[in-house]
């Protein structure tokens, strides 16, 4: 049985009299232990998909199954990692990482022991008592990853987690994530608009169509593991990158047309 199954999932928003279709008839199965990246043009409903798995929003039609059971509300089994960290500023690194276990009622001594293990796994030993405001962006994202892992979720949901980091930190974090996911053996659903990031991390890359989002292409990435940044020069890598790019390019252009068309119909509305 697949860990996560999207069954004809659609999501639309109503804005005045117009109905905006964000996701249309999305179907996908994710197996246990897989690392799946979703790439797509901005506004194609990638984040909407992730928010539906986490239970923050409900599909307008269709359903999402976790271990065969539909997700009905916010579910701690789907651990979310936000782009903007969403750490608790008033809690120390240790306090942040142990939060999920505290909510489960795990005794203090035990949960702190587990938290320390994960803090060490993400390479932040010695920073247990620092507050988030005292950490750099990369360190904050490490805390978020440790916080999600300590809660032992079935799946990690990552919404462009490294987009706010500078290019070098980002590369370090990608390699770290590979190691961490490997060590903890977690299923991961990762959203990005960077093809390189997807190719470095994923077992499978899902290319989404422009709005409304559908699966356009489901690509198995057969690059050998462990992967390194240097693999980006291999022939197979470039071949895959080319395939993904030509597929994405179409959608980006399409997306621009949609946006332009909409803008024409409603000339008063400003584009963000």
């Amino acid at each position, binding site marked *: 049985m697949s860990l996560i199954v999207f069954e004809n999932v659609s999501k639309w928003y109503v804005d005045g009299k117009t109905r905006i279709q964000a996701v249309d008839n999305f179907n996908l199965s994710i197996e246990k232990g897989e690392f799946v990246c979703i790439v797509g043009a901005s506004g194609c409903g990638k984040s909407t998909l992730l928010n539906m798995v*986490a239970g*923050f929003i409900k599909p307008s039609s269709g359903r999402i199954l976790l271990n065969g059971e539909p997700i009905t509300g*916010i579910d*701690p089994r*789907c*651990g*979310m990692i*936000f782009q*903007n960290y*969403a*750490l*608790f*500023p*008033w*809690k120390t690194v240790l306090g942040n990482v142990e*939060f*999920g276990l505290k*909510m*489960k009622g795990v005794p203090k001594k035990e949960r702190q022991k587990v938290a320390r293990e994960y803090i060490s796994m993400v390479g932040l030993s010695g920073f247990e008592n620092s*507050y*988030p*405001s*005292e950490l750099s962006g990369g360190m904050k994202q490490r805390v978020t990853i440790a*916080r*999600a892992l300590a*809660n032992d979720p079935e799946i990690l949901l990552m919404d462009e987690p490294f987009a706010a980091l500078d290019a070098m930190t980002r590369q370090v974090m990608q390699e770290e994530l590979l190691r961490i996911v490997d060590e903890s053996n977690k299923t991961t659903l990762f959203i990005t608009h960077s093809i390189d990031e997807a190719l470095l991390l994923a077992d499978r890359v899902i290319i989404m169509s422009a709005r409304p989002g559908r699966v356009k292409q489901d690509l198995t990435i057969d690059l050998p593991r462990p992967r390194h940044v240097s693999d980006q020069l291999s022939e197979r890598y470039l071949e895959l990158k080319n395939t993904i790019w030509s597929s994405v390019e179409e959608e980006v252009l399409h997306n621009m047309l949609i946006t332009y068309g909409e803008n024409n119909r409603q000339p008063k509305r400003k584009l963000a």
Partner: protein
Amino acid sequence: MSVDIESARLTTDVPAAEAEMPTENADLLSKLRRYRNLLISIFSVVTFISVWELVGRLGLVSPVFLPSPSLIYREGVMLFQNGVIQTDILASTRRVLVGFGISAAVAVPLGLLMGTSETLKAIFDPILSIIRPLPALSWIPLSMLWLGIGESQKYAIVFMGAFAPTLVYVIDATRRVDPLVIKAAKNLGASRLAVLREVILPGAMPNIISGLKVVLAVAWTCIISAEMVGASNGLGYRIWSAKDWGNTPQVLLGMVGISLTVLVIDTIFKKVEEKLIPWERNRR
């Protein structure tokens, strides 16, 4: 107040500057800079008092209208020696702190609930919007009718003055808590109550505290006025009765007393603030 902020910033800035300039000369310079603003402040106070004193000594203004600082000082020594001024300061301070404390104890939890529950907001909002525009002083007649002029009437006036603004500040602070952080907490399995206790309360705390600081000043206004209308001690009473006896130095002494007491309490409040929100330590 502004002087205080200035000097605080200087003390944090200076070590970094010192590290950049290792020569002895620079060291001296930075030391001088550290004391510069303090010296200016002292100079400004001394000048102000001297000019005031001079105006009195030269007989430019009659002491009945504006007694000189030395006359106020003499009055202060006298009232201190027979213990009157201490009693007044303690009485006023106690009234403020009790009224303010009760108001905070009720308004903070209620505000947290009103900020997070639409239903509770719908229930209490109309009452709040009727009470809010009423100045605390408008409660004086009614409070005297109900409670006389004893201590409980003083607490009630401070309470009425502090309650509505505190509630408004707390509701506002609650709504400013980053929704993303609330989402994250729920995602980690936090129940509604846990979100309130672990996320909304600490998340709103910095804004609640800055609101409480403003309200504390309001509470002082309330008690001074209430004491002027009906009391047998307290700084407000002292000023009002001194006026009736034509004792202008005592009027001014009472005012200085208010000033100094509020300053001291503000300083204590700042210490409490540091204890309550330690995670803001590197933002100050």
